[in-house]
C-alpha cells in the first residue's frame, strides 16, 4: 500500500542520519573556560594550498602567514623592517646574513632556529616550487646556519636586493615537518599527519572546506606585546560572493573583510553604523604591456599612440572612485618616496596626438577614420577592476581609430597565455612592487619572469645590471630613475596607477596594525594578533 509519508520520512531520515553522523563533540572540559573573543575574517576564496612555498591565492597567503613567519616586514614606503630577523645585510658582495630572534619555538615545542631558515631557502632553491620566493633566488647559491640564530647566504653573483627581498617574501617553514615530506614543491601540508605546526600567533586546527578555517592561539608569539595574540581564536570564513560577504559584515556574522572592497562600496560602508573602513596604502601598480614581438607593436610610435589613447583620469576617477594615484607612467611609484621622480609625467590622454603618431608611422586611416590596426587585450576575469577599465581602454583606442578586442579569461588560462606571449596587449596588476632593481630586472631584462613586453634594450639592460650591484641606495636612485625614464619614453610598459585599498571591519574591534598592500593590509600576523574586541 502506498503512503506518501513513507517517502518523505525516508528523505528526512537520510538528512537526519547524515547530520547525526557528523555533529562535532564539544571541547574537552577545562578548555571551555576561555573568555577571549573569536575574530572572524571573511575571504572570497578557499585555501588551495597550505604550503606557503607554493600557495598563490590570497587566502593561502593570509592563513599560512599566521603560521609561518617572514624574516622581514615591509614599511609603507617599501623599505624593510625586522620581523623574525633582528639584523640583516651583507658581509661582502657575495655573502649576506640574517640574525633571527633567539628563543623562538614552533607550536609543537620544537625550537625555531637558523637551521629552519637555511633549510627553507636551500629547499626552495633545490625543489623550485611555483611560489614568488623562488623567483627571488636567481643569484642565490646556498644558505648555512652558522649558529642557532645566524644564517649566512652565499650568492652566485653580487645582488644588492637579494637579502631584503628574500627576507620579505620568504616564509620560514619547520624543517622537522617539511623535510620528511620530501620535495617542498609538492608537499600539500594539509595537516593530514597530525595537524599543523606554527611559529606565528595562531595555528590552524580545523577546516570545513568551502566554509571555514579555524585557528587557535599559540602561546609563544614574542612579536606582539604580551607575547601572544589577543583573540583566542581566528576563524576565516569563505564567502564566494562579495555581496553576501558585505551583508555578513553588516549583520555581525563576520568581523573583518580581508579582501579589499569594491571601489564603489567604500563610501557606502564608511557611512554604515558599526562598520569602520581602513585605508591600506598600495605598494603595487596596474599596468598594460604591449607585446613587442608583434610587428605593429614593435614600433615605438604605435605603442606611444596607444598610450596616448587611454583616458587614465577617467579610469581613476570612475572605476576606482578616486582611490588610485597616478605614477606618472613610471615604475617608481609615489609610494617609493626615495625613488619617485616628479619630473616624469603621465602620458597625456589625447587621441588626436595618437592619430598623428600613427600617420607619422606610415599608417593610413580608411574612410571612417579607422587605421588598419586591431589588437587583442587580455585580462583576468577574477580581477573586477581591470575588467571594468578594459572597456574604457577599448573606447579610448576607438577614438584614435584603433580597434581593441577584449578577451577576459579565467585566471589560470590568463596566466598561461601571458607566459606564452599569446596576446597583443596585456592588462594586469602586481600587489607589491617594493624593490625597483629586482622588479625591473624581472620585468625588463630579456628572459625576465614578468617581461610581458618582450623588451630587450641594451641601454636599459646595462642600467638594471648596474643597479643590482649598487649596494648603497643613494647611489642606486639615479640609476633607477634613468631606467624608469627610458621605459616610459619608449613605452616598454604602461604603468597606470597605484590603487589604495580599503578594508572594512566591525567597530567593536580595534588595535589593527595596517601594512601596505592587500596581502598584508590589516590581516598581517602582527595586526591579527593585536586586535581586541571591546565590551
Amino acid at each position, binding site marked *: 500500500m502506498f503512503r506518501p509519508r513513507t517517502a518523505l520520512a525516508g528523505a528526512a531520515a537520510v538528512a537526519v542520519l547524515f547530520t547525526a553522523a557528523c555533529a562535532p563533540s564539544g571541547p574537552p572540559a577545562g578548555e571551555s573556560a576561555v573568555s577571549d573573543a573569536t575574530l572572524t575574517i571573511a575571504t572570497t576564496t578557499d585555501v588551495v594550498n597550505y604550503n606557503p612555498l607554493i600557495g598563490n591565492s590570497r587566502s593561502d597567503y593570509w592563513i599560512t602567514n599566521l603560521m609561518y613567519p617572514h624574516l622581514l616586514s615591509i614599511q609603507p614606503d617599501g623599505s624593510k623592517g625586522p620581523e623574525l630577523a633582528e639584523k640583516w645585510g651583507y658581509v661582502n658582495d657575495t655573502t649576506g646574513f640574517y640574525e633571527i630572534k633567539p628563543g623562538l619555538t614552533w607550536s609543537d615545542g620544537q625550537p625555531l632556529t637558523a637551521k629552519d631558515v637555511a633549510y627553507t631557502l636551500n629547499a626552495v632553491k633545490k625543489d623550485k616550487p611555483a611560489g614568488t620566493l623562488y623567483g627571488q633566488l636567481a643569484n642565490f647559491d646556498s644558505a648555512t646556519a652558522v649558529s642557532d640564530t645566524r644564517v649566512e647566504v652565499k650568492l652566485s653573483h653580487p645582488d644588492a636586493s637579494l637579502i631584503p627581498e628574500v627576507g620579505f617574501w620568504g616564509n620560514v617553514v619547520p624543517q622537522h615537518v617539511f623535510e620528511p615530506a620530501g620535495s617542498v614543491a609538492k608537499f600539500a601540508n594539509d595537516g593530514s599527519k597530525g595537524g599543523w605546526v606554527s611559529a606565528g600567533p595562531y595555528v590552524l586546527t580545523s577546516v570545513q572546506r568551502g566554509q571555514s578555517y579555524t585557528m587557535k592561539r599559540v602561546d609563544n608569539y614574542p612579536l606582539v606585546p604580551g607575547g601572544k595574540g589577543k583573540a583566542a581564536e581566528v576563524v576565516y570564513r569563505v564567502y564566494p*560572493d*562579495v*555581496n553576501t560577504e558585505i551583508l555578513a559584515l553588516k549583520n555581525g556574522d563576520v568581523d573583518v573583510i580581508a579582501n579589499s572592497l*569594491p571601489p*564603489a562600496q567604500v563610501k557606502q560602508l564608511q557611512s554604515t553604523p558599526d562598520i569602520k573602513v581602513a585605508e591600506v596604502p598600495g605598494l603595487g601598480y596596474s599596468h598594460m604591456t604591449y607585446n613587442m614581438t608583434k610587428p605593429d607593436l614593435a614600433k615605438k610610435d604605435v605603442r606611444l599612440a596607444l598610450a596616448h589613447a587611454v583616458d587614465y583620469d577617467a579610469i581613476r576617477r570612475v572605476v576606482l572612485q578616486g582611490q588610485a594615484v597616478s605614477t606618472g607612467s613610471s615604475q617608481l611609484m609615489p609610494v617609493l618616496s626615495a625613488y619617485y621622480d616628479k619630473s616624469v609625467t603621465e602620458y597625456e590622454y589625447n587621441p588626436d596626438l595618437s592619430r598623428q603618431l600613427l600617420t607619422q608611422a606610415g599608417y593610413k586611416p580608411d574612410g571612417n577614420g579607422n587605421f588598419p590596426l586591431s589588437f587583442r587585450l587580455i585580462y583576468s576575469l577574477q580581477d573586477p577592476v581591470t575588467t*571594468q577599465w578594459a572597456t574604457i581602454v577599448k573606447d579610448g583606442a576607438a577614438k584614435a581609430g584603433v580597434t581593441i578586442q577584449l578577451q577576459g579569461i579565467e585566471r589560470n588560462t590568463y596566466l598561461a597565455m601571458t607566459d606564452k606571449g599569446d596576446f597583443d596587449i596585456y592588462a594586469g596588476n602586481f600587489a607589491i612592487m617594493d624593490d625597483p632593481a629586482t622588479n625591473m630586472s624581472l620585468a625588463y631584462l630579456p628572459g625576465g619572469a614578468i617581461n610581458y613586453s618582450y623588451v630587450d634594450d641594451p641601454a636599459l639592460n646595462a642600467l638594471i645590471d648596474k643597479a643590482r650591484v649598487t649596494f648603497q641606495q643613494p647611489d642606486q636612485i639615479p640609476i633607477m630613475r634613468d631606467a624608469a625614464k627610458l621605459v616610459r619614453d619608449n613605452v616598454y610598459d604602461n604603468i597606470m596607477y597605484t590603487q589604495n585599498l580599503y578594508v572594512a571591519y566591525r567597530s567593536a574591534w580595534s588595535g589593527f596594525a595596517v601594512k601596505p598592500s592587500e596581502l598584508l593590509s590589516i590581516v598581517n600576523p602582527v595586526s591579527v594578533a593585536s586586535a581586541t574586541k571591546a565590551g
Partner: protein
Amino acid sequence: MTMSEVVPETTTAESTVDETPRPARTTWRTFRREPLGISALVVLVLLVVMAIAAPLLAHYPTGYGDVVLAPPSGAHWFGTDSLGLDVYAEVVWGAQQSLLVAAASSLIAIVFGTLLAVVGAYFRRIDAVISVVVDLFLSLPILPLMIMVAALVGPSTMTIILVIAAFSWPEVTRVVRSQALSVVRLPYVDAARLMTSSPVWIITRHVIPAVSPLILVSVVITSSRAVLTAASLAFLGLGDPNAWSWGRILYEAQQAGAMSTAWWLPLFPSLAIFLLVLASTLLSTTYNDARNRKRSRV
C-alpha cells in the same frame, strides 16, 4: 487531437474546415479566453519588440558616466551602474543579446532534437540507441558541464549558444519522441508507407506536422530556459564581455558588490528575465490546456 493537420492536402481538407473549425482554430479560441495566456503573449511580444527596437529606445551603453550607482531618476529611469552607465539602456540592449542567445540556441536544439526524435520514431532500430543516448544525456549534470565547457573554450556569444544548444536537445528529443511514436503507429501513416517508399516524405509530410504543436511549446520552454542558463553562466563570469546581456548586468552588479546596496542594479535585469520566463511558461501551459480542453472537461 491534431489529426486534421496531418491529413494530406489533396483530400477533403477544405470541406472539413467549413463544417467543423480546425482544431488549431479551436485551440486559439479557447486560448483567447484565457486572460493569463493572452497577457503572457502580450508580454512576450513587447519584449521582442523591445529587443528589435533597441536602437530607437536607447543609446548603446558605452564609455562611462559621471554619476555612478545613482538611484532611478528622471534622467536615468533604472538608475546607473558602477561605471555610471544607464541601466535602462543596458536592459534594452541586453534584451537583444539575451533573446538572440535564446532563439539561436533553442533553434539548434529543437532542430536537432526533433530530427532525432522523429527519425527514431520512424526507424525503430535507431530508436533504441537514441533513447538510451537521450537517457544518458539527461542524467548528466548539465549546468556544471556547461560551465566547464564555456570556461575551457573561452566565453563568447557563439560559445554560449553552442554550449546551451548542445545540452538542451535531449530534453526536446524526449518530449517529441513520445508524441512521434504514437503518430507513427496511427493507421494513416501505415497507409502512407504502403504508398511511398520515401521515409523523408512521410516524416516531413506526416510525422513532423503532427508533432508541430509540441515543437511550438518546446521552442518557448527551451528558449526561456536558455535565457536563465545564459544569465547563470554570465553571472559566473562566463558571459560575452563585448556585448550587453541581462546576465552581464547582473554579473557586473555582483562584481561591484552592489547587489544589496544598489537594488536597481539586480532588480531590472532580474525582472526582465522573470517576465520572459514567466510569460513563456504561462503561454505554453495555457496553450497546452487549450488543446486539451476537451479531455479535461469530461
